[in-house]
């Protein structure tokens, strides 16, 4: 969004004051309200739709396939599509690459194992219908909800099939819930001495820098890195801000997960 100089100055002044005065009055640790729809796509194993209060919308579908473990290295593939952006645009490629790596790094592939030979492979398709601010937080919430609602067919054949040339067979209608640890990611904006979560697009436009923090298995994990939120106001930050944002996520992440699960 383009803003005039006076708007940016007013906003920046508000955000660097202690405590930060966000344009919609939120606390520094307050997210925008979201609406979550789960399990609405009949043809996928799990699905979710998240609508944020600013109109950002994200649909995630999870499909599974049985693969031979010896032939496939990566058991999770993420595909990202953002309307209005080309597939080869830096933002889309960056987000897809980060998500692929995080999910492969943080999800234990053993949890997808079906039998000695075979395993489930998950295809996660992400579609961002409209986005105003950096969509990573919302996408990761949507992936979390989708994977949490994923139902996979229940195996009825034997798990030990190393010596038998037998394909796994499934129960006709019984499904079992996918049970894995799912990482979530947070984008934070640094404004002067303040760190704020879930920056809106106008807040991102005047932020001094952005920080990406990942949360998995009850603790902060990789990747953690600085993130580009705008080109105009980017500057160096004090190392304490990094520690602060991680501390903030350490407090917030359990609450966020509780809200998403609740």
């Amino acid at each position, binding site marked *: 969004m383009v803003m005039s100089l006076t708007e940016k100055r007013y906003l920046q002044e508000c955000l660097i004051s202690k405590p930060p005065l966000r344009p919609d009055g939120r606390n520094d640790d307050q997210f925008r309200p979201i609406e979550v729809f789960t399990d609405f796509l009949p043809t996928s194993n799990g699905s979710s739709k998240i609508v944020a209060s600013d109109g950002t919308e994200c649909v995630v579908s999870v499909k599974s396939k049985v693969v031979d473990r010896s032939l496939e290295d990566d058991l999770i593939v993420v595909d990202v599509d953002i309307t209005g952006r080309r597939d080869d645009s830096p*933002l889309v490629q960056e987000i897809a690459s980060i998500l692929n790596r995080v999910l492969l790094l943080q999800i234990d592939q053993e949890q997808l194992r079906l039998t000695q030979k075979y395993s489930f492979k998950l295809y996660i398709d992400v579609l961002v219908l409209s986005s105003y601010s950096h969509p990573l937080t919302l996408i990761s919430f949507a992936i979390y909800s989708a994977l949490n609602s994923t139902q996979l067919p229940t195996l009825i054949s034997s798990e030990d099939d190393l010596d038998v040339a037998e394909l796994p067979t499934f129960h006709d209608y019984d499904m079992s819930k996918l049970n894995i640890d799912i990482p979530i990611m947070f984008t934070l904006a640094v404004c002067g001495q303040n760190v704020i979560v879930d920056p809106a697009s106008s807040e991102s436009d005047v932020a001094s820098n952005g920080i990406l923090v990942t949360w998995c298995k009850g603790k902060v*994990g990789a990747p953690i890195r*600085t993130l580009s939120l705008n080109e105009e106001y980017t500057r160096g*930050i*004090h190392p304490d801000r*990094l*520690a602060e944002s991680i501390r903030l996520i350490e407090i917030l992440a359990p609450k966020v997960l509780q809200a998403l699960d609740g």
Partner: protein
Amino acid sequence: MLNTTDRRRILGPANAKPLVFDRSSVPVEENQESAKKSSVSTGNDAIYIENGIVVNCNGSSYLEVRSRTNDKNCTLLLTSIYGPRPSRGAFNAKATLSVQFKEVTLEKIAAGQIKEICTFLTNVFNAVVNLERYPKSGIDVFLSLIHSSSGQQDFELESIITACVNGITLAFVDAGIEILDTVSAGMYKRNVTAFMKNGTEVVGFWKDDDEQSSSENILEIVEKCKEHYLTNRKTMIEFMVRNKNASD
């Protein structure tokens, strides 16, 4: 060849021939850099720096980083900067910076990861280059990774990123583009931190493993990276001073 159909220009006669210059008469760019060459060894790394190798760009740097402890860990990186040059399109009060990364020999890094590195580096240098001084222009940074290897893995992304930050800073100095500080990066395990203002400000942080990710440990990592940053920066400044003295 000359008279292909270009209706917007007045063309020469049909039988015109293109000008051909005698190649032998062109003075070959003599290698004056011998004096500038500098191989400084600090801490665990041996760093070799050279400036101005690429002739047709506005600034360039060549960096060779070899680990003392691990013989196989070696990064060779060539950075060239084009600009500031006029940019087309809408009016822009500031210069726009673009960073492009390419592996010129073996392609080992995934395309998505390269994009991640590029946006990361762009973000770092957006904070460092004095972009207000160059309105309506674009500055393009091209990174050519000539070689990178490490012991266990095929490549080590973190040492490449560190080399990129240092290489780009040296190239900016060579191009005479205004930067706010001699930015340099330091590495500790699989963490990279880019600093400015003598290590008091972080302009880039990259962490790719799970270890020590709690809020207390982060500052420790930053401190460790800072040590490496200070030695790297010392090397770079020494090179620049020596370079200056040699040209005087």
